[in-house]
């Protein structure tokens, strides 16, 4: 089953699990098995569902038709048990949810019939796979012992299987059944014997290894089935390697394995063997000892064994190679054969073997023996002559080397020292021994060596242009940005199929997004909902690195989707965004459009310690509630946001088309800051504006903001609590007008730039309020201001003009927030500053209801900060 096909339909499959027709539910279980085997963590949340389904089944809630011999739907029960085993493996929390139902199933299944036993066995398997629970394990062990002691062969078989699965982790349960197991081993039934062997293999430890390996070898001697033999060989070698009581025993065992089934032995085993013989055991290496040390004994024995082996007509290749090597190294130890006789035997060995590698080994071995012998017998010479014309180059080379070395017997001995296979060869990299040769050549007039020139580097430099560009592309225009954000978003919800597209098929991707159905995607285009993640509900809605980063890496985004899909979805865009240019260099036109990104890790990371503040501050409002609170406002975009990723897909289209309209919408909830006054009075306000003395900041209760700019005569602002729905209509109008009017006010009431702050008064609010406002103000300006004299947060505070009220600063991240208000319009100005000591700059974000205000204040602040002294 191709698992990638299932990705599209995970949602539907999950829904089908809860279908009221049991057939549909049953049909989904194999699919879940396939998916869970691939990725366990994605489905951990299904444990309660499976447990409840299993419970219902065992409670006989299914129609009677599903019963099989009065047991309800046994194969479905077993499927569910398997799923639970997969999910509960190594996971205590999930496993604990299952214990009860497992006990239940086991009890009810324990009828006298085979199918009941099958279910019990399945429970046993599950119990041994998931996080252990003593009660269940005991129950499992009891059932197993009943199976093993029963008369039916099938039950014995199942019992042995169950025992094998238990004994691996809980060996003590095996002890009770030794006799029964031995009986099974002796049984006539081949299958049972094999299963018992398997059990023995799993039970091997240092104590019983010899017995068990003996048994395995005896089976190997008689077995004919290839698969079986391969399995046995693997098992024997594993046991031997792990639990060998002594080197000698190990060598003997391996030799026996070679004899019986050499063709099935992996070459790595031969390697280990020869290594063992060569190195011996470390403890005994230093023994001077009387006579031979045990190492030598080992080697002598090995040599003798091999010599006997060579008598056989047909040796497996691997074995022949091992034999040749060992004899070459340690042949001198042999007391039964002289070196010449060994060499004879080796020559004969080559006649039988077909593999050139073996011949090469033999040639080398003979060379070593000749070195030790001191003289070269005629037979060997003839042998070498014959193979020096071998087709195989390796063999030929070795023979020729040998013949060359023969002319220099001293060198031969040096080159092939005795028992030095473990010593490193020293290499003189400077080849100093050739210095004499070089000198003589130079004397004769040869040109000295000139190393290659560096002009090759130029070529290398030219080659640079062929390298991959990792600098991001320029910021794309807005519509493209949004569609790219779409793609970014689509890339997130595990949409591996989007990555290969690498194409900006934003809208095409939307159905995929819909199926992805992750809330991450929904945060696109929506500060507020994105901030529904508690991590970001710090200063209200201020995930500013997030939104701005979205447009910048738009183009690299498709390329990086593959990597972003692989990374955690939230981190993805950030990973790519890291390449983006400084977020503060850009303007975002419609901040609601910009934040296509999920409010991913980087933003909350730097704000994470403040989560607690936010939680405390927001009190009753949970993270979701905070977002939902906003969502309750009469902006349908937002209400749809948290749930429908489909609608998130539609949002960019909406934003694209209705950028202007959304501004109005945004203003609607924001109207809290503007009093619900009739339009006329608003106009009046303008006229009155210039004459009004600068009102002192009205006392502001904790979470209530009364517009400072409004003369007390005006009706009091509506409560800033969420959901000013009843006033929405009015607010819309007034806000619309406010929109229109604001530019006028801005130009009329604002004095020339020299004194931009005449109508800007500090706005005394608290962080919570700031947070709320932040999300609702539509316009912002981000600037990065290089500063020379600002290096501490304290200085920064002083640098910001006094027309801003300092709301809060966070020393840890060198940030601070300020608030002010326009006296004329009552529109608020929110300021966030962050000191960047590394770049010697300050990043500021100015948010307000009007673009002009933002820009003006931004410019003013820039001037103020750069000119700040000390």
């Amino acid at each position, binding site marked *: *089953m191709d698992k990638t096909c299932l990705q599209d339909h995970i949602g539907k499959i999950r829904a089908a699990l809860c279908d009221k027709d*049991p*057939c549909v539910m*049953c*049909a989904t*279980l*194999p699919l879940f*098995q396939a998916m869970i085997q691939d990725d366990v963590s994605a489905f951990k949340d299904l444990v309660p569902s499976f447990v409840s389904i299993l419970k219902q089944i065992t409670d006989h809630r299914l*129609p009677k*038709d*599903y019963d*099989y011999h009065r047991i309800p*739907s*046994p*194969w*479905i029960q*077993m*499927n569910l048990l*398997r799923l639970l085993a997969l999910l509960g493996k190594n996971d205590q929390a999930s496993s604990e949810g299952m214990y009860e139902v497992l006990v239940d199933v086991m009890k009810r299944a324990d009828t006298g019939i*085979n*199918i009941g*036993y*099958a*279910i019990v*066995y*399945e429970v046993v*398997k599950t119990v041994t796979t998931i996080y252990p629970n003593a009660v269940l394990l005991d129950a499992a062990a009891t059932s197993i012992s009943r199976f093993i002691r029963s008369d039916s*062969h*099938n*039950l*014995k*078989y*199942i019992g042995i*299987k169950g025992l094998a699965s238990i004994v691996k982790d809980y060996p003590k349960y095996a002890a009770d059944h030794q006799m029964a197991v031995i009986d099974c081993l002796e049984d*006539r*039934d*081949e*299958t*049972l014997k*094999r299963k018992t062997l398997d059990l023995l293999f799993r039970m091997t430890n240092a104590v019983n290894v010899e017995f068990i390996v003996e048994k395995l070898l005896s089976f190997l001697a008689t077995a004919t*089935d290839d*698969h*079986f033999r391969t399995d046995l060989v693997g098992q024997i070698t594993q046991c031997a390697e792990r639990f060998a009581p002594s080197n000698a025993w190990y060598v003997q065992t391996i030799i026996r394995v070679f004899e019986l089934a050499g063709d099935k032995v992996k070459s790595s085993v031969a390697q280990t063997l020869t290594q063992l013989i060569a190195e011996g055991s470390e403890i005994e290496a230093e023994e001077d000892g009387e006579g031979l040390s045990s190492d030598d004994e080992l080697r002598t024995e090995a040599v003798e064994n091999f010599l006997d082996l060579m008598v056989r007509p047909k040796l497996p290749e691997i074995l022949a190679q091992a034999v040749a090597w060992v004899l070459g190294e340690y042949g001198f130890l042999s007391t039964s054969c002289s070196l010449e006789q060994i060499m004879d035997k080796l020559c004969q060995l080559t006649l039988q073997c077909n593999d050139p590698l073996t011949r090469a080994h033999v040639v080398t071995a003979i060379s070593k023996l000749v070195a030790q012998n001191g003289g070269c017998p005629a037979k060997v010479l003839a042998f070498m002559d014959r193979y020096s014309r071998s087709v195989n180059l390796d063999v030929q080379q070795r023979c020729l080397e040998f013949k060359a070395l023969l002319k220099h017997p001293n060198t031969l001995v040096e080159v092939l020292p005795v028992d030095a296979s473990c010593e490193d060869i020293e290499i003189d990299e400077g080849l100093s021994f050739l210095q004499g040769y070089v000198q003589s050549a130079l004397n004769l007039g040869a040109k000295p060596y000139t190393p290659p020139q560096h002009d090759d580097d130029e070529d290398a430099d030219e080659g640079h242009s062929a390298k991959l560009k990792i600098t991001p592309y320029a910021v794309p225009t807005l519509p493209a940005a949004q569609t790219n954000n779409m793609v970014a978003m689509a890339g997130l919800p595990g949409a591996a199929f989007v990555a290969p597209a690498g194409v900006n098929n934003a809208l095409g991707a939307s159905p995929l997004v819909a199926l992805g159905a992750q809330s991450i995607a929904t945060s696109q285009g929506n500060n507020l909902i994105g901030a529904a993640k508690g991590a970001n509900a710090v200063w209200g809605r201020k995930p500013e690195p997030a939104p701005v980063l979205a447009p910048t890496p738009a183009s690299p985004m498709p390329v990086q989707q593959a990597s972003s899909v692989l990374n955690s979805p939230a981190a993805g865009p950030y990973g790519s965004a890291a390449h983006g240019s400084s977020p503060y260099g850009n303007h975002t036109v419609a901040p609601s459009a910009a934040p296509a990104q999920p409010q991913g890790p980087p933003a909350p990371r730097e704000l994470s310690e403040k989560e607690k503040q936010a939680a405390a501050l927001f009190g009753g409002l949970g993270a979701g509630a905070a977002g939902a609170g906003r969502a309750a406002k009469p902006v349908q975009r937002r209400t749809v946001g948290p749930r429908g990723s489909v609608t998130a897909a539609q949002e960019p289209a909406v934003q694209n088309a209705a950028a202007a309209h959304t501004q109005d919408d945004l203003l609607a909830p924001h109207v809290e800051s503007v009093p619900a006054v009739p339009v006329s009075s608003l106009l009046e306000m303008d006229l009155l504006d210039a004459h009004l003395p600068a009102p002192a900041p009205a006392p502001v209760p904790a979470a209530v903001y009364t517009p400072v700019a409004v003369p007390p005569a005006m009706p009091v602002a509506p409560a800033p609590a969420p959901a000013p729905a009843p006033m929405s209509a009015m607010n819309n109008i007034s806000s619309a007008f406010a929109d229109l009017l604001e530019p006028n006010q801005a130009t009329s009431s604002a004095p020339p730039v020299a004194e931009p702050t005449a109508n800007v008064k500090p706005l005394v609010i608290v962080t919570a309020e700031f947070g709320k406002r932040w999300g609702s103000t539509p316009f912002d300006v981000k600037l990065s201001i290089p500063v020379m004299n600002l290096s501490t947060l304290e200085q920064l505070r002083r640098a910001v003009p006094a027309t801003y009220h300092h709301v809060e600063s966070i020393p840890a991240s060198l940030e601070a927030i300020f608030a002010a208000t326009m006296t004329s319009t009552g529109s608020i100005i929110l300021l966030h500053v962050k000191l960047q000591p590394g770049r010697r700059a300050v990043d500021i974000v100015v948010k307000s209801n009007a673009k002009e205000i933002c820009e003006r204040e931004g410019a003013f602040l820039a001037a103020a900060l750069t000119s700040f002294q000390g």
Partner: protein
Amino acid sequence: MIKFVLMVNKQGQTRLASYFQWYPIQERVALEAEIIRRCLSRTEFQCSFIEYRGFKVVYRRYASLFFVVAVDGEEENELAILEFIHSLVETMDKYFESVCELDIMFHIEKAHYIVDEMVVNGSIVENNKVNILKPLALMDKLASAEGGIFSR
């Protein structure tokens, strides 16, 4: 995963073969011959499970017919498969009313329908006899209806 379901008689003639994993034709023929040989050589007092070429064969003899199901993987519950064979026989019994080898021979397509309803892509999905036999009942009704295109 169930690899295949076979119904083979004692003479080695395959009456029904439903493969869920593809094997070439020659391999299938060889496979079936070998398996039935093994099954025939076993006595009643031995396990109903054989290990063959890396997968497990579960068999049961009903009168003259051997029902053979091969499963792979260490994970499979052989006893469950044995009972599945029995449940398959019971279902066929319900439909054919006291099923015998001839029924399977002469209504091979019905037997295939039953197996296909119960096993999908190697996994057992259904054991409710009513559900399994529903499509067959519908087909029978259509076939026996007068004037329809399926009428005889």
